[in-house]
């Protein structure tokens, strides 16, 4: 594999855009990323788009082609990918792979999703419908349910507290208030988070990410071209994809996908968790962030609750996590989420993160888990970026 760098980033604020089309949201992010790279669309030789679904009516057709045709990008291979909640990261990984293998020099990865056009019932029914392959959903299982189950077992085995989990929401909402692209920008106190409506015990509403609409795009280039397009290219030191093993014989307090993906990513980058200056991890629920600290090696197994409580995952701590505000503030805009995480890290490594800047950041880790089957995430992507 050859060196690959990120030359351009472009996001739009996540929010409610029911009055605009999915296509227009995608266009805006792609235009921003291509401009940021100092390119023209015709410079791009391949494109991957992440879009999980068009939620009101089912699977989307050709969304990448519709978006890119509008900005004059045609002829090249354009491919839509889907991998649950890690759909955007999968698009990035494929674009990286195409450049890293030398199949092309410049590739675009973008993600776009429009979820507020559908009702909560409609969205839940996608996971619980009669034709759904896995039957847990129509027996009462749900994403919050799975993470409530994870939380209870983690509390039981390691003494993790409700307060420690709520602290994740407090931290991420604080950083969200500093991010102009976050959807939720109001800070919350620990007491407010704990007193909110219960969704799945012990997870109250602010500990569950909202959905939303939005898009995010990045341009990847072969390392040899990096300085031609951007004065501060950010290199991709590792790009890893794994799928779940759904263990029955392990305690439900970790994700097997996380652990294997992290080991592979650290090996590929020639780095360890001690080298990571900051991270964006998949905080779909507050407890998930605590488990990811452990799975990614930021702290030892069982010490994730203390890691947040002692401030190690805040700005100024050992490894600041989710300085973007995370999914808990930005919302989980599924196809765009993974790429939005990468955009935050590129901003940080470029020194362009404003009030939430992590000083001196040189190495950053992105983690995105996709979908849930039985006891494991179906897919997991980890990227390590380096200045």
């Amino acid at each position: 594999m050859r060196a690959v760098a990120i030359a351009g980033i472009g996001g739009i604020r996540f929010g409610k855009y029911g009055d605009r089309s999915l296509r227009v949201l995608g266009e805006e992010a792609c235009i921003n990323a291509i401009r940021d790279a100092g390119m023209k669309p015709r410079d791009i030789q391949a494109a991957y788009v992440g879009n999980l679904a068009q939620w009101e009516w089912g699977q989307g057709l050709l969304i990448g082609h519709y978006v890119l045709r509008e900005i004059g990008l045609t002829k090249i291979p354009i491919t839509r990918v889907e991998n649950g909640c890690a759909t955007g990261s999968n698009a990035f990984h494929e674009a990286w792979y195409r450049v890293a293998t030398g199949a092309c020099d410049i590739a675009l990865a973008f993600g776009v999703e429009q979820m507020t056009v559908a009702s909560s019932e409609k969205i839940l029914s996608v996971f619980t419908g009669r034709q759904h392959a896995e039957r847990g959903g129509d027996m009462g299982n749900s994403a919050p349910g799975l993470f409530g189950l994870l939380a209870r077992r983690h509390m039981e085995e390691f003494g993790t507290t409700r307060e420690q989990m709520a602290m994740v929401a407090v931290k991420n909402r604080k950083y969200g208030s500093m991010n102009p692209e976050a959807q939720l920008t109001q800070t919350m106190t620990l007491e407010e988070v704990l007193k909110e409506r219960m969704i799945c015990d012990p997870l109250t509403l602010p500990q569950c990410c909202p959905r939303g609409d939005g898009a995010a795009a990045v341009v990847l280039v072969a390392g040899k071209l990096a300085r031609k397009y951007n004065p501060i290219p950010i290199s991709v030191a590792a790009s890893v994809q794994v799928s779940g093993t759904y263990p029955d014989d392990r305690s439900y307090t970790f994700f097997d996908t996380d652990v294997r993906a992290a080991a592979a990513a650290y090996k590929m980058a020639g780095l360890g968790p001690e080298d990571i200056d900051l991270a964006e991890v998949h905080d779909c629920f507050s407890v998930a962030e605590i488990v990811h600290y452990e799975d990614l090696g930021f702290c030892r197994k069982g010490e994730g609750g203390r890691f947040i409580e002692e401030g190690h995952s805040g700005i100024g701590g050992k490894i600041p996590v989710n300085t973007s505000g995370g999914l808990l503030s930005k919302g989980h805009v599924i196809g765009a989420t993974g790429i939005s995480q990468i955009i935050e890290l590129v901003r940080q490594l470029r020194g362009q993160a404003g009030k939430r800047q992590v000083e001196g950041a040189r190495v950053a880790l992105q983690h995105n888990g996709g979908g849930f089957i039985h006891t494991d995430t179906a897919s997991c992507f980890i990227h390590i970026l380096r200045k």
Partner: protein
Amino acid sequence: MSQNDKKRRFIDDAWFHDFGQGLSLTGGRCPACGQTYFPTKQVCPSCFNAEQRKVPLSGKGKLHTYTRSHMGPAGIQTPFTIGFIELPEGIKLFSLLTQCDPWDEVLSVGMEMEMVIETIREDEEGNEIVGYKFRPSRGASS
């Protein structure tokens, strides 16, 4: 057939079988490698053997974890309680929990649970969808 032409049907017919002592939760066992799984599958996921034996799964297990859900699919009244049950066959089974109120006093990680077959939810036409649930065991310890 009950009143108002409402029907009762299993959530999945393959999940239950009468092995001679009433309905049991039904798994598959691979005669080649001994792997047991639920539900039955087309091939053994461990060794790809296409033969499998239907076997009754233990109706008892330990509560691995649980939560109270205040949201869920249409047809199940909220709040409800769910958990993972560890069956002696080495299977972690997702299940609705029943007869466990007040849930946060009655339930504890590691406690013995037993299966009951009852209505899970109503479908869009008002039919009763029947499946398995687990409740705290009424064995010798209680």
